[in-house]
């Protein structure tokens, strides 16, 4: 059976160790693949080089950075769902992703 191409998920946040935990939890699923961006500019740059099926905004960005990211993504990648991630770990993560991907 042909393996499914994983869905690329971009996670943005300033707490490196929490981002790594979230990335590990996402990658564990097998059908998703996480990419970490440590700040707003890195997130925008990464999006220019790769298509993502979903973007999760984690902790540490200012309200204006969150807003600018959402505006830029909505304008340039209208089909990419954008989710503000809450909780920092496995508790809400899967429900947030399932819901955003329409599962």
């Amino acid at each position, binding site marked *: 059976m042909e393996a499914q191409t994983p869905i690329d998920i971009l996670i943005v946040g300033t707490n490196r160790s929490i981002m790594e935990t979230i990335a590990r939890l996402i990658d564990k699923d097998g059908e998703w693949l996480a990419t970490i961006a440590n700040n707003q500019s890195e997130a925008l740059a990464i999006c220019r080089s790769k298509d993502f099926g979903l973007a999760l905004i*984690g902790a540490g960005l200012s309200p204006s950075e969150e807003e600018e990211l959402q505006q830029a993504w909505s304008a340039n990648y209208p089909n990419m769902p954008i989710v503000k991630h809450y909780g920092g770990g496995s*508790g*809400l993560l899967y429900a947030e992703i399932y819901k955003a991907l329409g599962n």
Partner: protein
Amino acid sequence: MAQTVLHKADTRGVADHGWLKSYQSFSFAGYYNPERINFGALRVLNDDIVSGGRGFGEHPHDNMEIISIPLEGELQHRDSMGNIATIKSGEIQVMSAGTGIYHAEYNPDTNHPAKFLQIWVFPNKRNVTPRYDQVLVDTKGKKNEWIQILSPNPDDAGVWIHQDAWFNMANFDAGVSQTYSLHSPDHGVYIFVLAGELEIEGRTLAARDGLGIWETTQFEVKATADARFLLMEVPMKF
């Protein structure tokens, strides 16, 4: 007219990890039910049983108000802010995870399980400075009244959180009826029965049932048997 949603105890998600048995009123970790994501700002209500001597290893949280209410036994808490504490029945613990926090919790009693409620409320502000607190809430001997254990106000009874939420614990004798008045018509209340039986808006609630009620300014809670329950008022839009 008041709107209600009833979550019977046996419809909750169940996670059994051996050392942890968790009954989940809303989608959490591996339990996903698109019809059961949240009730307003109330996102998690887990009814957890932790085996003796076992617990949660160090793990992160961010941007969430996390409330723990021990029901039986005790839990030892350690976090990345340097807090080391034990909470036991009668106390309530709160963590504002904000920009990020790591913590671990375990049951120090190797002979008995610890039972506690783990409740997560969406904050009204993202990326706050993390904080930890615990308070003793004396509910013993207090009957047939609302006992406030949480509010948005640092100077008020119980713990406080970054959200317009009010939690009350209550012990009602059979036959007692009390009216609960909401702080805002935009709020809703989720009632979780710990023991006994209640009747609210024509609905009967048994132990571990949950009832959400909104689009009302007040409602009556009647105990049809001696009952102990938690009442959580939260904004429905946040």
